[in-house]
């Protein structure tokens, strides 16, 4: 599904942030992406999200070399990728329901069509009662569950999560990772979850990708 071959990334004329990355991700798998701050986790996620192009090497996603793709094709491929951020990035003026429905609205679906699906997903992530609440009224855990629901509502093939447990307590972190695991198991979504919380890595036995100074030192 995803293949990196000798990939390097630099911003402008600066030093290489990522070096010689070679790995592959199989469909339906779950990977932790870990490493110390500044190791390049977010840059690697941005490459996977197709918001950056590699400075060198080859990135293949869904069977296509992403370096030569047109803007339209890149957009189509990006719609197969969901993203969850540490800081949630919900739109403050929209309700939980409207935030989660946003990807379907962007795809042009009418509300009558997506309302049952969004409602069902919100209930599944435990936000059925908070559907009409604005993000400012949600707790950290609720915000992150809403962000996860928004990321998966359009059924992406790959779900990227950038430190999704960074703003919640350890117990909630564990519950959120269980939620990702459940999504992986029930929907078959490929998940790459970036975190630097070692207890989480010990608690779940998913393969790890360890980045250090821009290089992939472990990929099991």
């Amino acid at each position, binding site marked *: 599904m995803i293949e990196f071959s000798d990939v390097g990334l630099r911003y402008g004329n600066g030093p290489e942030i990522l070096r010689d990355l070679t790995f592959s991700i199989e469909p339906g798998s779950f990977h932790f992406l870990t490493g110390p701050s500044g190791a390049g986790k977010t840059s690697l996620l941005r490459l996977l999200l197709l918001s950056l192009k590699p400075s060198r090497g080859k990135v293949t996603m869904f069977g296509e070399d992403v370096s030569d793709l047109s803007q339209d094709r890149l957009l189509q491929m990006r*719609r197969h990728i969901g993203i969850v951020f540490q800081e949630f*990035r919900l*739109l403050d*003026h*929209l309700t939980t329901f*409207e935030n989660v429905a946003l*990807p379907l*609205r962007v795809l042009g679906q009418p*509300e009558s069509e997506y309302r049952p699906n969004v409602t069902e997903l919100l209930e599944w992530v435990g936000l059925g009662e908070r559907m009409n609440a604005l993000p400012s009224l949600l707790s950290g855990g609720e915000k992150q569950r809403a962000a996860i629901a928004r990321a998966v509502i*359009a059924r992406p093939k790959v779900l990227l999560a950038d430190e999704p447990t960074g703003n919640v307590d350890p117990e909630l972190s564990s519950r959120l990772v269980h939620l990702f695991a459940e999504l992986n198991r029930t929907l078959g979504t490929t998940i790459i979850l970036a975190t630097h919380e070692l207890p989480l890595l010990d608690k779940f036995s998913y393969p790890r990708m360890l980045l250090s100074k821009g290089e992939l030192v472990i990929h099991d």
Partner: protein
Amino acid sequence: MIERVAGLFNILRRRRGAAPIVPEKSVAGRTLLLMITIMSFLSAVTLGGVVLVQKSAIAWSADVGRELTIQIRPVEGEVMESNLRTAVSLAQTTPGVASARALTLEESQKLLEPWLGAGLDLAAIEVPRLVVVQLADPVDADIEGLTRNLAAIKGASLDTHAAWRQQLNTMAGTIVLSGLMVLALIGVATVLAIIFATRGAMATNREIVDVLHYIGASNRFIAGEFQGRFLSIGLQGGLIGAAAALLFFALIGAAAGNMLSSEAGAQMGVLFGRFALGVDGMIGILAVIPVIAALTAITSRMTVRRYLSETS
């Protein structure tokens, strides 16, 4: 008033469906609405002024074009009254002439009063005399034939007021052209203000733009969302500005009719047709609404597309 109308539009928007992705308050709403309202008002007033001047100029020109004046200067050995009768007769037999009559001495005296003063006995002085000729149809009138025939009367000349009409048309044309230039400048200023407002709104809503990109929204979709907000503001501003301009012309018309003395009012009426815009003038002013709205929407869409292509 502006806020009430804006509120009504917002209510209508909300009833239509889901909340707007670009928040209504973040698009420099009130300031931009006020600016577009002022620009719409200025455009509508300029347009109305141009219509008034043009209509008056056409009316003046048509009135003057229907009248000719035969002037008969006193010539030694010629009998003025006889020449006057001949001139009237020649004019009346010319094709296209509706009527012709010589001004009496009293009427000539009145015409000279502003220069020579009242109570003058013209019988004591030899003054030129005039024959007023009304044309039935200025296009078909045989003016050249009349000019040729008048050559037989010593001291007679025909004044078609062509030079005066030419000056009038030039003056009206200059005013209309100036008005159109002012309209164009208002348009340019509006476009520039919308560009700055759009770029400001994009910077303010950078987070929304990023999120939309991350969830797979195309630049076209994002531009459409911003365009929708600006179209709404443009419609509101255009509507309020045009309504204010119509009110302005109604008040000016009423003031010209009631507040000025009857003589001054009559003179203003001759000049500006009593500020009556007419149906075409009102249509022109109402046309400002969709034009301003379209200008706002198109400018904002192009600015957003450019901004997105620069930043993505």
